[in-house]
């Protein structure tokens, strides 16, 4: 039975992209010299949904986005985006996608309106039409007052909004956002999330890369976790949390030195590898009922003092840790 499932999974990996999906990638690989940035990546994003591509720096997120937006050729594999093939239909595809990157790719010495007008004209619009569309977007993104100021006078959040507006000039059905809120203050992040949610409610398909688990949790319908160039898990946020084994038990120790004793005492009821740092022990437990009482009893028998003990739903942090064996954000520091 197991063998059968495996072999069908292998044949799916080499199948053609799914034409029903807005974005569909099959067997995408890419190396830079000796470094394998992507290894046989399969991915589907249904029309009108958001896929959150989650992973630490260097996991391959940006490489995948660059391939799907025609900026980079894959070594092997095929993809279909907005109904057009990669490789083969890159030129046409560029008319149907929008890309907003980690770095606000707008000209600092042009005004907001000049930037958007330039992009519109490069999509082939006349000057008048491009400028009208630019004004429309500036209004939509709350940048009307800054329309005639050079971008170098903008705040970080304003630049990101302008960058996103530039990606939307041609009203693309498929939008790629590469770490859209990295480096933004919390207020600007919330604003940008609202904008993205509005776009999705209007039918845009979004592929979003992020290192922030809360961002994926909030925006993404589906999440793909990528690590070392491979998609290691896929599903909704809840599905991924379930995969980690349901509930997490967190124990704050009176004395951090007793961490080892605590782990030993709790080992029989663990559903995965326990972690501990600074006197906080975390374990996955298979059954919620009675877990706290059992844990307290075991710790008491082992003479381990407890400050606080609690059960909670796993976060995507736990998911990441369980899937990759390392934390998401710690590794993500450049």
């Amino acid at each position, binding site marked *: 039975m197991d063998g059968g499932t495996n072999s069908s999974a292998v044949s799916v990996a080499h199948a053609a992209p799914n034409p029903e999906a807005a974005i569909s990638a099959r067997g995408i690989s890419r190396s830079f010299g000796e470094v394998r940035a992507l290894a046989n990546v399969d991915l589907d994003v249904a029309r009108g949904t958001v896929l959150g591509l989650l992973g630490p720096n260097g996991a391959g997120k940006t490489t995948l986005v660059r391939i799907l937006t*025609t900026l980079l050729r894959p070594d092997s594999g095929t993809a279909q985006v907005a109904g057009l093939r990669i490789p083969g239909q890159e030129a046409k595809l560029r008319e149907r996608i929008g*890309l907003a*990157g980690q*770095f606000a790719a707008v000209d600092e*010495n*042009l005004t907001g309106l000049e930037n958007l007008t330039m*992009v519109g*004209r*490069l999509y082939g619009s006349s000057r008048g039409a491009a400028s009208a569309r630019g004004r429309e977007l500036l209004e939509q993104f709350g940048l009307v007052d800054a329309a005639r100021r*050079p971008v170098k006078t903008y705040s970080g959040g304003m630049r990101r909004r302008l960058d996103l507006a530039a990606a939307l000039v041609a009203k693309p059905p498929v939008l790629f956002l590469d770490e859209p809120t990295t480096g933004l203050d919390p207020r600007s992040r919330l604003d940008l999330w609202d904008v993205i949610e509005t776009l999705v409610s209007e039918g845009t398909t979004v592929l979003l890369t992020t290192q922030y688990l809360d961002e994926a949790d909030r925006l993404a319908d589906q999440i793909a976790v990528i690590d070392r160039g491979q998609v290691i898990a896929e599903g909704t946020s809840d599905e991924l949390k379930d995969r980690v084994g349901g509930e997490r038990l967190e124990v704050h120790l009176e004395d951090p030195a007793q961490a080892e004793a605590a782990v030993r005492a709790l080992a029989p009821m663990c559903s995965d590898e326990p972690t501990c740092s600074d006197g906080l022990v975390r374990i996955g437990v298979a059954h919620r009922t009675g877990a706290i009482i059992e844990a307290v009893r075991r710790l008491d028998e082992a003479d381990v003092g407890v400050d606080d003990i609690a059960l909670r739903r796993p976060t995507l942090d736990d998911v990441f840790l369980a899937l990759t064996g390392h934390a998401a954000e710690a590794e993500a520091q450049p």
Partner: protein
Amino acid sequence: MRRLLSDTLVVTERNLIRLPRAPELLLAFTFQPIMFVLLFRYVFGGAIRVPGISYAEFLLPGIVVQNIAFGGFVTALGLNEDMQKGLIDRFRSLPMSRAAVLAGRTSADLFTNAVAMAILVLTGLVIGFSFQTDVVHVVIGVVLALLFGYAFSWVFAFLGLLVKTPEAANSVGFIAVFPLTFISSAFVPGQTLPTPLRQFADVNPFTIVVNELRWLWTGQPSPDQLWQAFAWVAFILLVFAPLAVQRYRRTAGT
């Protein structure tokens, strides 16, 4: 092809509107040439004897050629900055002509070079330069100088894409081009140079282009032929434009 032209125009326009907003660049191609003319004319000019011609008249064609060759600096710095800031990625994700990014950049130089040359010539007229030939020769000289500058814009485009930072583009460009302009007949008569330098100066395209421009504008006899100057322009373009385009494709593709 129509796409290439219209996209090139859009990118050229973009490069020109941003210029007045970057004061350091504006200074570089307006005041700097004036400063150079004045320094050479009044600091070195007294000590340099050129047979049969005043130093102001000798100097101006040389300084025009040197200045116009360096005009491409704006391209090196601009392309490098666009790469660092992710603007090249933006352009590459658009359904626009790929060649337009480089063509728009170098075409913008053509405008700034023309402005800088006008400033230089006006300064020259004030300090004692005058055209000694007819309009046709003067215009051919202007065309030659602009084309030479355009060819060097592609050299700088290649350099700008080759190095990692604008600072590196600056120093590589300076080290590569500055000696070329000086070991030539631009500022002193070639005969006064020590033998090895003179041999280099004799085959230096700068010498040939400067000699021809001097002939076109002041009527001073030139040891070379006009076609050689245009041949150099064509040669530099044919070598560096494909190199820059290839480098652009590669830089952007990895």
